[in-house]
């Protein structure tokens, strides 16, 4: 048989997940010059992963990344299999039998835990649940968030914490023309939340927000950013960090915080940024009533400082808590998992089992490197993984004639799995856009899988 990757023996790749990493891996394969066929598997009928269900509804420009993915999807090498859960509808082993290689781009689907008492009390939620809920993700559409209290506590100071805080801080008027899920808009309209505490473990010089996200808090219609000036005190090591010319990002963030501290709050609703505090306990009688915080100090060299509690604690009365301290990947049968890091163990995207590379299995995106970076970060990451894959061409299992998509359809049809192709998605897309128009929204998402599938019958 002719060489793998030649016109009559194309490289067959299964991509698991349809978010940015999956599409950038697809793009890199198509551009590589190697003849290839890509089958992309997605457990929902609808594609685009966190660009659809993670990026906040009031950031429509960021969602324009979808245009690039839609264009990649037009390539003749690309095929979409939506509504197919790898691991249940079709196994990893079956993907390996039908393809030469599998690239996992399935993200980090759960939250890291705080590991403190009361974390699971009613009223204490993960950022993932809340973000999935307001973005109309089918897994979270039926969640209920009790917004009848005046005080919310958000644990974490990254961009997800910023999204959660900002959605809580905005008025219905600021959200009603976005693609926020209808159920979320209704619930937020009744929100009584007035005080939004955003708690960071480290100091104001180490916050993980991007300046763009933070800046938005200065321009909200009915909420003021509030910072106690004392919170902005810096230790000498943090001063060194901010003076470093290569650390322009954190300097900008610190300047924004300083600007917030100088403002006079004029609205009823406040978003209060607090630094150097760690949650020790969430408590209440049957539901969240307060959060116990411990004051931290920083130690270590500049840029390597860590926060440590000093035993000095205080409580904030709060009715609702959101934990937003990072994501964690979920294991998949048939793939070695690094439990501590929440990723598939890998070297430059090659999945590693017991210290040995297993040619044929690859990972890209958050399930490869952990939940860091933004959309574009995944492009470089997927390019690296595809480079590894292409270097391995001679080591891939080329046994038997690999059937690719045909083999997968046979397996899925045998199991009565209703798979969705890209034209099906375009129909769902058009229906969503159309029903959004009536409400002045860019789209009104369908939030349940049966609803989506019903559009196709």
């Amino acid at each position, binding site marked *: 048989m002719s060489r793998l990757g030649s016109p009559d023996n194309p490289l067959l790749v299964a991509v698991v997940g349809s978010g*940015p990493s999956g599409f950038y891996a697809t793009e890199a394969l198509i*551009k590589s010059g190697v003849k290839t066929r890509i089958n992309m598997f997605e457990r929902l009928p609808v594609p685009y992963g966190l660009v659809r269900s993670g990026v906040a509804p009031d950031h429509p*420009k*960021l*969602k*324009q*990344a979808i*245009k*690039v993915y839609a264009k990649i999807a037009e390539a003749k090498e690309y095929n979409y299999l939506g509504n197919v859960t790898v691991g249940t509808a079709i196994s990893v082993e079956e993907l390996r039998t039908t393809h030469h290689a599998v690239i996992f781009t399935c993200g980090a689907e759960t939250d890291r835990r705080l590991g403190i008492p009361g974390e699971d009390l009613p009223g204490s939620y993960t950022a993932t649940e809340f973000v999935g809920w307001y973005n109309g993700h089918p897994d979270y559409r039926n969640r209920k968030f009790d917004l009848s209290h005046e005080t919310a506590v958000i644990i974490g100071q990254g961009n997800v914490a910023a999204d959660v805080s900002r959605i809580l801080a905005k008025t219905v008027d600021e959200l009603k023309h976005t693609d926020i899920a209808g159920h979320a808009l209704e619930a937020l309209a009744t929100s009584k939340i007035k005080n939004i505490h955003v708690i960071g473990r480290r100091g104001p010089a180490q916050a993980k927000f*991007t*300046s*763009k996200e933070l*800046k938005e808090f200065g321009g909200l219609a009915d909420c003021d950013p509030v910072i106690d000036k004392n919170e902005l005190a810096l230790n000498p090591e943090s001063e060194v960090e901010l003076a470093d*010319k*290569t650390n*322009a*990002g954190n300097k*900008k963030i610190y300047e924004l915080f300083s600007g917030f501290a100088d403002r006079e709050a004029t609205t009823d609703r406040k978003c209060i940024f607090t630094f150097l505090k760690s949650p020790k306990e969430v408590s209440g009688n049957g539901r969240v009533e307060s959060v116990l915080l411990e004051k931290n100090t920083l130690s270590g060299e500049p840029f390597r400082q860590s926060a440590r509690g000093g035993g000095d604690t205080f409580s904030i009365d709060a009715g609702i808590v959101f934990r937003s301290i990072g994501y964690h990947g979920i294991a998949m049968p048939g793939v070695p998992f690094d439990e501590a890091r929440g990723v598939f163990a890998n070297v430059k995207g090659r999945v590693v089992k017991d210290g040995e590379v297993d040619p044929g299995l690859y990972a890209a995106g958050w399930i490869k490197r952990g939940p860091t*970076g*933004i*959309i*574009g*970060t*995944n*492009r*470089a990451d997927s*390019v690296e993984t595809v480079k590894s894959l292409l270097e391995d061409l001679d080591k891939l299992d080329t046994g038997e004639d690999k059937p690719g998509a045909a083999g997968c359809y046979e397996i899925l049809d045998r199991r009565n799995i209703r798979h969705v192709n890209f034209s099906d998605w375009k129909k769902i897309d058009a229906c969503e856009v159309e029903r959004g128009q009536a409400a002045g929204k860019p789209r009104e998402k369908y939030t349940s899988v049966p609803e989506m599938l019903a559009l196709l019958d």
Partner: protein
Amino acid sequence: MTTIVTDNCKDCRYTDCVTVCPVECFHYDEQMLYIDPEVCIDCSACLPECPVQAIYEEDDLPEDKYEWIEINAQKSRELPVCADTMEPLPGADEKKAALGF
């Protein structure tokens, strides 16, 4: 709002920014890179990648660099897309050092 490449890029053209651009909005000539404001989605992924801090969000652009808004818009219309990394220009490291980075 858009994102703008400014004069620090001139004669450097490191292209670290290009690898993280989710939408291929960079264009190039033999001197530097330019961002197409019609394509850029303002994600800011490129900002921290630039070794010479040539890239600004429009909001933060110093007044003496305002001219670069129009230059980026115009040049990006005329020039080819830069989709992959390229070798930095000869003398890039010297310019970087001269800029204090």
